């Protein structure tokens, strides 16, 4: 099977309003229909349809040998996905929470990531590991982490994080079609609505957001391409996942003309879009929910400094979670919310 079909024109496709879960479910359904080699597995994903319902209905439709529950062993889940890939399948394992991925790390880091390299292309690991990540649901330290930087640091793994239903579907399809192992982190806080960081105000459902209009049928969004959420001139915002919505809300509240970039793929990074924007605005704000030290923001900051130094008019601002485990009761004090982001914006605007 090849995936070099002509791109589908989305302008003509009819759309449906979907939340993030429904969009992911739709992508899995479509790929299972298109490609008999796609299999979906993970803890509780079969009959139950996943603890977040992302795989609801798939087992009934595609059968038990293509959508099935697994033993509680992340090491086993990733390990068998490597073996299935070696046979020629295209496994889409789910790790129930990103916080639970660590027992599978050896199979990901030492095996899946290097299979192509060490066998000189004889074997590949075309798997997409889906996993809900991030906080904001009072999940405490074992249901809230954002470990994306652990994976961006490993050569041979692609890391993708969608921020809207529209992107989640197109990016997941592209990830499944990709012949390299992809970590697909789903920001669980925005599964049901585009949370904007103002936790004390009501959350709007996806239905009221433009990007919940999801085209019917097959389409893919290429990995490695960022999306300009809002063009602007005052400064560049680099964000992904939940923080795209939080940063956008704070910029709107402050009435600043920011250019907001949703990176969508961290590796490979769309460096061209980043460079072009920072060269235009001369200022850069990086936002992520993960801990600060050696977070992906550090990489972004280094790249912007190396490549855009002579265009910079202010120090790069980096807004992140704190370097502590994710606390339970002080969740909103931990979360990089409007106050933390707002102050960084003020510093950039004054510079």
């Amino acid at each position, binding site marked *: 099977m090849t995936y070099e079909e002509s791109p589908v024109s989305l302008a003509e496709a009819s759309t449906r309003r979907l939340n993030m879960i429904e969009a992911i479910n739709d992508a899995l359904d479509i790929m299972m229909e298109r490609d008999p080699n796609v299999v979906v597995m993970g803890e509780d994903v079969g009959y139950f349809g996943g603890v977040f319902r992302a795989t609801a209905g798939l087992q009934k439709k595609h059968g038990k040998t293509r959508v099935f529950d697994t*033993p*509680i062993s992340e090491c086993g889940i990733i390990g068998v996905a490597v073996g299935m890939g070696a046979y*020629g399948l295209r496994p889409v394992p789910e790790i129930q929470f990103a916080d639970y991925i660590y027992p599978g790390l050896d199979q990901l880091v030492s095996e899946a990531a290097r299979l192509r390299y060490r066998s000189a292309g004889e074997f590949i690991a075309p798997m997409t590991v889906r996993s809900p990540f991030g906080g904001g649901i009072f999940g405490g330290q074992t249901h809230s982490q954002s470990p994306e930087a652990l994976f961006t640091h490993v050569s041979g793994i692609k890391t993708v994080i969608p921020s809207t239903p529209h992107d989640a579907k197109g990016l997941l399809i592209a990830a499944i079609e990709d012949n390299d192992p992809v970590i697909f982190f789903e920001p669980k806080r925005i599964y049901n609505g585009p949370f904007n960081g103002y936790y004390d105000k009501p959350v709007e459902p996806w239905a009221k957001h433009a990007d919940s209009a999801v085209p019917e049928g097959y389409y893919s969004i290429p990995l490695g391409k960022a999306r300009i959420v809002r063009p602007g001139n005052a400064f560049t915002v680099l964000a992904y996942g939940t923080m795209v919505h939080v940063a956008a809300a704070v910029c709107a509240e402050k009435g600043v003309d920011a250019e907001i970039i949703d990176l969508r793929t961290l590796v490979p990074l769309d460096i061209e879009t980043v460079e072009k924007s920072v060269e235009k605005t001369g200022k850069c704000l990086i936002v992520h929910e993960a801990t600060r030290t050696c977070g992906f923001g550090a990489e972004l900051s280094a790249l912007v400094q190396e490549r855009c130094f002579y265009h910079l008019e202010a120090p790069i601002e980096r807004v992140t979670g*704190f*370097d502590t485990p994710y*606390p*339970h009761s002080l969740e909103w004090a931990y979360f990089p919310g409007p106050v933390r982001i707002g102050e960084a914006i003020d510093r950039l605007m004054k510079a």
Partner: protein
Amino acid sequence: MSGGTNGGARGNLPPLALHVPEPKFRPGDEVDYSHLEIPPAGAQARPDEQCAAAETQALCFDLVRVLGEDHRAIGPWDPKLDADTLRRMLRTMALTRAFDDRMYRGQRQGKTSFYMKCTGEEATSVAPAMALASDDMVFPSYRQQGILISRGYPIVEMINQIYSNRADKLKGRQLPIMYSAREASFFTISGNLATQYPQAVGWAMASAIKGDTRIAATWIGEGSTAEGDFHSAMTFATVYNAPVIFNVVNNQWAISSFSGFAGAERTTFAARAIGYGMAGLRVDGNDPLAVYAATKWAADRARSNAGPTLIEHFTYRAEGHSTSDDPGQYRSAHEREEWPLGDPINRLKQHLIVIGEWSEDQHAAMDRELMEQVKAATKEAEKNGILGHGLHHPFHTMFEDVFEELPWHLKEQSEQAIHERRVKWPEWKEA
């Protein structure tokens, strides 16, 4: 594409078929447990505590039972506990259930974010806690609140933890029910699965290295025996003959996955011991006397340097996995009613009544008293706040205990957090 030839049978060979386990009953199904082999109480042999591990092999496929259909204790495993001890056991299990019911309601009322009940499984934590020495170290999973209650840990402290309030000894950091109670020899609960298993072995090895007399015990659900940690623990325990007791609480369900997804279609969980050369016992987990006797046997064995034991507690998770779960989506509601091993509290109650040491009236009075006790503790804890109502630990505590000493970057971040609070609530003062 790399890999082998993709699909298609070759020659006259039959096509291979993947087996995916399927539970017997789904929502709406009538439930019939006649396929389960339930041996009569008292029929299981009781080998010497210091026997060779291989002598327990038959017990890995049997079911140690003490309380018979007539509610009398029978057979070599009868621990012959006096009536006061039996009443204490009953009371502790009933308190655990009353506590669970109240905390579950509290979560539904928005007083906290999350709760997990152990309904139907009370015997698997209360009876072992009573059979162990109070300073034997336990490494629990997340459904062993009965151990803390059994060891007399104040339930007010448990509620403070569940509410993540300003009196929570864990400073509001952990998800509700992820207790830590060093003074009760109760290890901090992780939230990640099976990690406690090798840790219990390490504690037991340390106790042996130091020539101590204390042993370790650990708990896991049958579903989590699939994790590598379980198997690492088993290997280390037998290599070093560590003084440790492994409890596998087989409550049939791991969220929506039945025990078949952990291997139960092929063998028992107690039988996992055989391959490692470890003693194993399979116990009626709803029979508190059998659970007590098995734990006592394993504890005596460990304490006499005769080695570790794996105990499978065959029981049933009567409620959902947690407050985030809806078991009506994936299993038949009749399973709980039809469960052939009954309810542990009711069985012990009937036993005490049959031997003339208890009555329905006394039981009803006890239930009322326990309900009042939990209610009073709840009121007491609520003075210290409930989740999300402002009475939490001061912001700077979020940065403490990451390291022993606060490094510069956490000091800066701590100041930032407090600063942000002042921006959001200018009238606020740090307590």
